[in-house]
Each structure stands twice: as C-alpha cells, then as structure tokens.
C-alpha cells in the first residue's frame, strides 16, 4: 500500500491539477473565491474531539485515505438511475455522476420562463451575475474546514434559480451518484438554490452510490429563500455503508418566507450534517425535520442551528433517530434567539430508539435565548423497542421482524407523515420495511 499523504497536504497539492481541469468554470471571480478558500483551508485546523462541535465525532477514519479528485466523466445507465426514482411521481430529473452534471441522465419537464435548473458549472458560464450575487455569501463557510475545501474545489453541483413570482409545480429530483471501481474518490457537489420573491419550488437532494465503496462526499448546499417564497426540501442519503459524507446546508430566509426540510438518512461509515437556517427578516417559518436509521458501526452526526435573528418567526424541528448494533448517533440542535427576536416561536424535539445494548446516542438541545417575549420548547427522549407492543402484534400472527418494522415505522411516523409528497412517503415505507425484514 502506498503511503498516505497528510489529508490537508493532499488537497493543497492536488489543487493545481484540479484548476487545470477547469474550462469555462474558471472565471476570474471564481478563481479568486477558490484561491481564498484554499488559503482558509490551509489555515484552519482539522477538527478533533477537543473541539466542542466535534466532541463525539472522530474524523480520523476519514484521514486514513487520500481521495482522488475525479476529472474524467463516468457513465451511468438510465436503468440504474431509474431504481432510485419515486414511483408515479412526475418530476424534473438532474443527475450528477461523481459530482459532475450528466446531461444524458437528466431530463427536465416544461418550465416557466426564466427558471433555470441545471448545473453550477453551466451557471458560472451562463448566469455569472446570479452566481456572483448569491454564491458563498454566508461567511461562516469560510471558517469551516470542509466548507472551505468545497469552495476551493468549486466546479459543479446543482443550480436552481426561480425568478420572482414563478412557481415550479413538479418537484426537482437531483440524484448524486458515486460510482467508481477500486479508486477511492472524493466528490464535492456544490449546490446553489435560489427562490425568488413569491416563488415556489420543491427540491429533492438524493445521494446514492452504485456499490458499497469507500469514498468521500463533501457537499455544500446553499439555499436562498427570498421574500414570501416557499421552498420544500428533502434530502435523502442512501449511500454506500462505507462512505464518508460531510455536508453543510446554509439556508437564508427573507421576510414572510417558508422553508421546510426533511433529511432522511441511512447513514454511511461516517456522516456529519450541519444544517443552518437563518432568519434575515420577520414573519418567516422554518421546519427542519430529520430521520436517521443506522446500524453496524455507523456514525451519524447532525448539528443544526436555527438562528432567530429577527422577530416574529417560527421554527419547528423534529429529529428521529433509530440505532441498532454498535451504531452511534449525535444530535445537536441549537436554537439561537437574538435580543431583537421578540415573538419568536421555536419548538424542537429529538426522539431516539435504541435497538441494541451497544448503540449509543448523544443528544443535546442548545437553546440560547436573549429575547424575553418568546415561546420555546425542546425535548429529547431515548427509548427502547416497546416489547409489550411487539408481543401484542406477534400474538396476532405477525412475524417478529414484521412487527419490528411496523413499530419502527410508527415511531418514525411523525416525521414521515409531515413530508408533503406522498410518493416519497411510500418510498420511505418501502425502505423501512426492507431494512427491518432482512
């Protein structure tokens, strides 16, 4: 085996090769942004267990590999993609193979004038003024080493722009598929979604792989929800059980906007999600829900931050964890209510079920409230399988495993039933019953 080069050193070294592979994506502005990000990446230390934010998540397994940067196109058959589409759901489809847009696999339905759905790579060339206005505007990205890595290597990802007043009726299904033979690769989807004033859209970010390979997905998604816009977002992680997945989602909400996100995950070897939602103005609503099912020795970590920077906003958060075997989960939900943010409503719930003796969850609600006229609540529970209920079901002739699946489905139902698209709920039902009837 070849010696492994230090994680940071590796990406610093590879950056030249990466920039050489760029074509039209290498505008002056983007070059500057990448360069600056690479400097940040160089200066930021890698997180360790001593960092409060990474207390329970040891990234050392990730540091054992040098992940190759993909410059060649890979091909995926439409049949493979078809397996991951939702039955009977009419949707726009855009596919990224190893991080790069695949026109062959993608298919858009009719769209209202001015709506752009496609790749960031194209947007850099064709819509530079929009990219310039919205890309990487959240400065916290610059202080996060993995986000800095993403920015330094910005090349492609999903780009959606819905102009003022436009409504995209059908959901936009974005599939990120990682496919490689023996090579351990990194893919860095960089997604930018902009919902104009009074617009509406539904986005499904769907991460999959064709094999149980070791690879690294380092994703950053930026979502701008302008005044009175409505965005419904779903993220579905169905990747290799050996994958590393580090993802950051930054949501900025303007006045009277409505953002809903459901993050459903079957985990990888190590998964870390950071989800930050910021109320930039009054009168908005944000829902962050999630469900993760992990087993084996999987580690799943989600850190959320809802920043009530302005008054009169509502947030709802509900995360459900289902942990089996030696899996470990981390839920850290921070709600910040700034001094100005009077009349805030913020509700948070985290419910976990542990199916074995050795699985473990660390759950931590963090409410920081600096305003006095607010309604906030939080609650975390950790429980076990309800054996009485299971016996009751079995006594009706239902097999042990089916009974488990039914009870897990019931436990998850609060989150699943709040997903608006029925076809996704059905898809998840199937995933759950498959997962628990093996």
């Amino acid at each position, binding site marked *: 085996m070849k010696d492994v080069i230090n994680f940071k050193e590796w990406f610093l070294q590879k950056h030249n090769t990466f920039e050489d592979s760029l074509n039209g994506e290498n505008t002056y502005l983007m070059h500057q942004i990448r360069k600056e990000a690479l400097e940040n990446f160089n200066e930021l230390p890698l997180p360790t267990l001593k960092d409060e934010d990474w207390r329970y998540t040891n990234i050392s397994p990730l540091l054992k590999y040098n992940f190759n940067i993909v410059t060649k196109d890979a091909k995926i058959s439409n049949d493979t993609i078809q397996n991951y589409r939702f039955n009977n759901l009419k949707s726009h489809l855009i596919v990224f193979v190893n991080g790069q847009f695949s026109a062959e696999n993608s298919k858009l339905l009719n769209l209202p004038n001015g709506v752009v759905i496609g790749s960031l790579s194209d947007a850099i060339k064709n819509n530079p003024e929009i990219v310039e206005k919205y890309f990487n505007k959240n400065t916290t990205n610059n202080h996060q080493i993995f986000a800095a890595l993403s920015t330094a290597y910005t090349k492609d990802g999903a780009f959606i722009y819905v102009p003022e007043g436009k409504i995209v009726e059908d959901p936009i299904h974005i599939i990120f598929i990682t496919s490689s033979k023996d090579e351990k690769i990194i893919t860095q989807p960089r997604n930018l979604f902009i919902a104009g004033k009074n617009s509406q859209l539904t986005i499904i970010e769907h991460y999959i792989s064709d094999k149980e390979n070791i690879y690294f997905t380092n994703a950053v998604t930026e979502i701008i929800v302008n005044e009175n816009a409505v965005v419904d977002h779903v993220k579905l992680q169905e990747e290799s059980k050996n994958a590393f997945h580090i993802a950051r989602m930054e949501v900025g909400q303007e006045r009277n906007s409505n953002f809903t996100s459901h993050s459903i995950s079957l985990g990888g070897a190590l998964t870390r999600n950071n989800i930050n939602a910021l109320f930039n103005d009054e009168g908005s609503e944000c829902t962050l829900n999630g469900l993760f099912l992990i087993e084996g020795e999987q580690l799943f970590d989600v850190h959320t931050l809802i920043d009530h920077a302005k008054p009169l906003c509502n947030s709802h958060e509900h995360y459900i964890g289902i942990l089996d075997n030696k899996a470990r989960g981390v839920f850290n939900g921070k709600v910040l209510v700034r001094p100005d943010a009077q009349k805030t409503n913020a509700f948070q719930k985290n419910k976990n079920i542990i199916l074995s003796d050795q699985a473990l969850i660390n759950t931590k609600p963090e409410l920081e409230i600096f305003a006095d006229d607010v309604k906030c609540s939080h609650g975390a529970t950790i429980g076990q399988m*309800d054996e*009485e*209920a299971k*016996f*009751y*079901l*079995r*006594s*009706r*002739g*239902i*097999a*042990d495993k*089916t*009974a488990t699946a*039914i*009870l897990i*489905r*019931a*436990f998850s*139902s*609060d989150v699943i039933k709040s997903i608006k698209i029925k076809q996704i709920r059905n898809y998840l039902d199937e995933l759950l019953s498959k997962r628990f009837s093996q």
Partner: protein
Amino acid sequence: MLEIKNLHVNINGSKILNGVNLKVNAGEVHALMGPNGSGKSTLALVLAGREDYKVTEGEVLYNGKNLLDLSPEDRAREGIFLAFQYPVEIPGVSNVNLLKTAVNEIRKYNGEEELDAIDFLDLIKEKMKLVELDQSFLKRSVNEGFSGGEKKRNEIFQMAVLNPRLAILDETDSGLDIDAIKVVANGVNKLRSKDNATIVVTHYQRLLNYIIPDFVHVLYNGRIVKSGGKELAMELEEKGYDWIKNGSEEVVSG
C-alpha cells in the same frame, strides 16, 4: 385440542403457576375463575407465548404439537387467539394496518393467497357489524385513547377477523355495561362451532349467562383447585372464593 400438563411458570424468579392441569376439547367452552393474582392472566399469556414467562416444568400440547416450542406468531397462525386483559396501545399503527398484516401473514403461513384490498375490506366490514364498531375506528391507532369498553370490543373484533380455533378471553367482560357484554358474548357465540374451543377468564357469573360454559375451573395459588359445571360459577358468585381457598388448604395439609 389443548392439553396442559403439570405446568409450572416463573416470572422474574417467583413461582406463579404451580402445576396446572387442563384439558380442552374442540367444541367446548371453559370458564376460568379465581381471585385476583391467582395466575389466570399468567396462564393465558403463557399459552400465547410470552417469552419472559419461564416454564420450569410441565408441557402443553395443542393439536398434538408441543405448543411451547412455537413462537407467538406461529401459535396465532395455528389458531390461538388471546383477547388481552389489558390490550396494548400502539400509537402510529392503525387498526386496519394491524389486521391486514395479521390476516395476510396467517394466510401465507397456511398456504393461502393473500387477500386483496377489496376482499379484505369486505371481511372487515362484515366483522365490524358483529361488534357494532364504527368505520372511523379502523384508521385510529391500535387502542390508543380507547375507552375500556372500546378496547375490549376491539379484541373481540380482532378475534372475529382472525377466526381462531382456540380463543382465550382474559376478562373481556370486566368493566363493561350489560349492553357491551351482550356484544362481546354475541361475538363469541357467533364463532362457536364444533371445531373451535374457548377459554373465558372472568370474575363474574354475569358473562356466563350469555356464554354458557361446559366447564368451570377455579385457579388459586397457581393451581386449578376445583372444577365443575356451570353451576359452580353460580356458587362462586354467591359464596365467594373463601370456601374453596379453605378447601384447597385442607387438600394441601391433608
């Protein structure tokens, strides 16, 4: 159909059943009575397959098979049904979902085709009438927020749908008014046939006016201390259990 021989059961290390003997033939109805804590529910739950109740001695034959070797679900698939004294609430699982899964798993086990949605619904509707339950009830979560009476009726409804060969009703009459008792009794009587058998656990003779038992047994301190015909239930109603308790002690000391 069912033969219980010298059954001893421990719960958490304490002895609850101390040598129960009972034989139930097809076509019969047996009433099982006895004071609180005598072990009636324990016996019922052991027959249904509660795994944390440890059988330390004895055996149970069901249609010639060793019942204690079967998983709870296989017992149900072989035709055993327990109406729980305390039906479990299962939030998030609808009554209809439970029944549909149960019916089809039982059919699969018995080599029958699964019922399609329409046939299933027909079956359900027919049985709902039997227990006078409202349609809206199907979508509700199993027993969640049900009144005591609704829970008991739900047990009988499930029994009617699953059509067991051996039904064990554990105090299905407790806390019910007379109209509800008639509904329960009617449900049981409709299922009575020469191929089926029923064990009715009860404290009250009242139910036995509507479900006429062939035999009445008294369980005390984990053993059946007295058996008789339906008159025994009347006698117990009149005199209580003390005369039997005393009697049983005499037996022990004698």
